């Protein structure tokens, strides 16, 4: 199942973290949660040249790393609280993989703490995601 808005794809098999335009996806795998950037973030950033993960433990909403595109450094944020168990070295050494396929290019795998920090900013399901993306596109077009 896939939602497509203005050429950007949003698989419905995962959830999305939306606080302050964060645009991160999260998908549980075993006892870990894989986290990456969504198609909107990849599209807005343009060609990614650098990616760095700077933390090993994070609270929901905290910046856990940075990426660079067009000589501009942006941060990416952890949707959940927990420990970063694995970093995807393949994506780290070639961040353009995120531009090519954001949903196959997870950045970190986290072991979540047992709390619900940040859950109010996590959405799922076609309607919720569609509403959110439409608002984001409107916001983007207004700002440009």
């Amino acid at each position, binding site marked *: 199942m896939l939602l497509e808005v203005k050429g950007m794809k949003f698989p419905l098999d995962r959830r999305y973290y939306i606080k*302050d335009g964060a645009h991160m996806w999260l998908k549980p795998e075993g006892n870990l949660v894989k986290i990456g950037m969504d198609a909107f973030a990849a599209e*807005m*950033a*343009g060609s990614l*040249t*650098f*990616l*760095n993960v700077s933390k090993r433990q994070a609270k929901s909403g905290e910046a856990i790393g*940075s990426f*660079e*595109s*067009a*000589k*501009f*450094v*942006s*941060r990416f944020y952890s949707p959940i609280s927990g420990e970063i168990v694995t970093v995807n070295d393949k994506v*780290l*050494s070639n*961040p353009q993989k995120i531009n090519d396929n954001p949903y196959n290019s997870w950045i970190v795998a986290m072991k979540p703490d047992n709390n619900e920090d940040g859950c109010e900013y996590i959405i799922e399901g076609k309607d919720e995601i569609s509403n959110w993306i439409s608002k984001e596109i409107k*916001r*983007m077009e*207004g*700002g*440009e």
Partner: protein
Amino acid sequence: MKLFNLGELNWRQTQLIYHALAYKNIESLVLHSSNDRYMCVGLHQDPRDELDLKYCNKNNIGIFRREIGGGTVLIDNDQVFYNLIIHRNHPKVPYTPENFFRRFLQPVIQAYRELGISAEYRPLCDLVVREKKISGNGGGEIGECKVLGGSILLDFDYERMAQSVLSSDDLRRRFLELMQNNLTTVRKELGVIPSKEEICSILATKFTDLLGPMTKGRVDTEITKKMMELNKQYSSDTWLYQRGTKQIGREIKVREGVSLFHKVFNTQKGPGGVTCEIEENRVKKVSFFNAFSLSHIDQEKLEERLIGLEYDRNKLVNEIIEMIKTHGGLVVA
């Protein structure tokens, strides 16, 4: 929004001030220049890869790793530095990096034009005059703010820049030539250098036209405290020397579309290097050292194959590896 028109600052303060203001969430325009020269690398750069550290140490050239993006720059007293610190949710802040630069470099373009220099925006974040770069810029998120950083080049020490980034005589000579052909300054364009006060005054007016009136900012104890705290962090080796995304080969950029690309290949017959001069994103010149096991004729063939190619590090490197393999060489790392 506040205006901090600070005149000359100590080299570390020129960086600390805008980081501190961003972390303190103080929307502002900062204008200043450095009273000493130093090298400044982007957040994702490692000075060990970017600089000739021996040369910098020997010549007392300081090194700073900033939190915003862009490449390695030489900063000295011949530049007027501007930083715009603006909240990321400010209605005038565009979403994409390119549009961020396009919008907030407009006042700088206007300032150049008022000085009599017909500067134009060139994506992603250069300002150029007749295709020659006259201002380099970088940007990024710091705390809750987005930050633009760049400088008006009054004059430029091309030699010093080349020496600070490259230890190889040959590469340095090529880089110097590329810079001289593709980088200009206010002095070169006008024949004279207007006063820094005049330039800052024009910049302040042009940014005010875009963002509305500004009130005079004062570096108070809270800002000073934050600067001191950040100074401690940014002075540490753990901050300065951080390995990030491993780049393929080394690229030394002059302006958008113009750079020097150099890569050493380890083969079973020893190391060999290729240097490509890139102009308008295409390979313009190619040269070899040690040349692997390739004959002179094969080198010419490889050169022929590479010249005119669109510059893409991965493709370029793969092309070279293929050619070495075709001619009986083996790339071991």
